[in-house]
């Protein structure tokens, strides 16, 4: 039975959720190009959505790397 790595993976995902949430709230959320670049507020929101989606893609990429690392023995068998 290999439940141990699954527990590790659950913990890794939880940490990634905390870190990802932190990045969204502290960095992406307050970003504003409206004042300094005179950007339309809707476009400003669009850019932030784009950054958030990039973060999601990065999150999935990191998660698949963590998956390969945690389950490397089982995935080979």
């Amino acid at each position, binding site marked *: 039975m290999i*439940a141990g790595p699954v527990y590790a993976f659950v913990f890794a995902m939880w940490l990634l959720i905390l870190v990802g*949430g*932190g990045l*969204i709230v502290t960095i992406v959320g307050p970003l504003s190009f409206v004042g300094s670049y005179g950007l339309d507020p809707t476009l400003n929101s669009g850019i932030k959505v784009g950054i958030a989606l990039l973060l999601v893609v990065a999150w999935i990429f990191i998660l698949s790397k963590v998956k390969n690392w945690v389950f490397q023995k089982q995935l080979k068998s």
Partner: protein
Amino acid sequence: MENQIVAAVLVSIVAFFTVFTITPFLIKFLEKRNLVVKDYNRKGGAMIARPGGISIIIGVIASELVLYAFFPSIHILAIVITSSLAFCVGIVDDRRVMGGWFKPVALVFCAIPILLLGAYDPGLAFPLFGSVNIPVLYIGLVIFMIPITGNTINSIDVLNGIASGFTSIASFALSAALFVMQNYEIAIASLALGFASLAFYKYHKFPSRIFPGDSGALVFGATYGAIAIVGSVEVIAAVALLPAIINSFLFLSSVKKIVEHRQIKNPTFLLDDYKLGATPDKDAPITIVRLIVAGKPLTEKEIGFVIFRLAIFSGAFAVITAFLMGVRI
């Protein structure tokens, strides 16, 4: 407060005993009409009644309406409508085998009542760091959340008792988290789902007398998703659901497309001693069950308990996350 305690007790009793009482009659009804499927992992391949979603939806609706009588809010109404629509989607899939696209697309429409009733707060709350207000993006989140939770629970409905037992643990964890956050009304709504799934587990656990079918699994998932949205606990709900999310993630990252579960190769195989082992087939998808039995074959009951321990583990993280919601760094 007294009103909330009475509501919590009454709603829990109605949810549990409605499903507990109706399910045996439903089993007889389904067996009489030959609405049964083979349980391939059982000695002799017993024929099991399906779908059990009928008793689950009755239990969920009855208990949520009792809650609505105590607290008449659009949030409870949104949960009831979303659950009912998800049941309709599931029952169509139970009666006619639809393509892999059907459930995700149809479940998108189940989320619409939440938007139309305005039963959501467009802020996404994260632990430790606060929340972000995303009015437009949140609509997309609502639309995607119901198909995701619905299909996530559906994807773990692979062995006796897993879907109902897992939903029960995740719902109680979500309920505890909502009580921590003092969102009592929605905490009681989650309690109702927990007790309805617990009562169904009594008949679904190994050896199963009834399977929930797509209708039952989608009611579990969609109700859970709706509670997460109307209670503004999306992140906490995702944490409690992590083992099931991992299962979907492993599956999708190995299969690389959305397919109906009937179309895929079995990731496990049955041994002579009725234990399940991991298939050596490289093309079969990677799932949480396949990983659990990778080292050593286990019985269906043993696999269930491993998954339930994982659910309790992630449920504990969900409650910790709820406490962290009140902490700022």
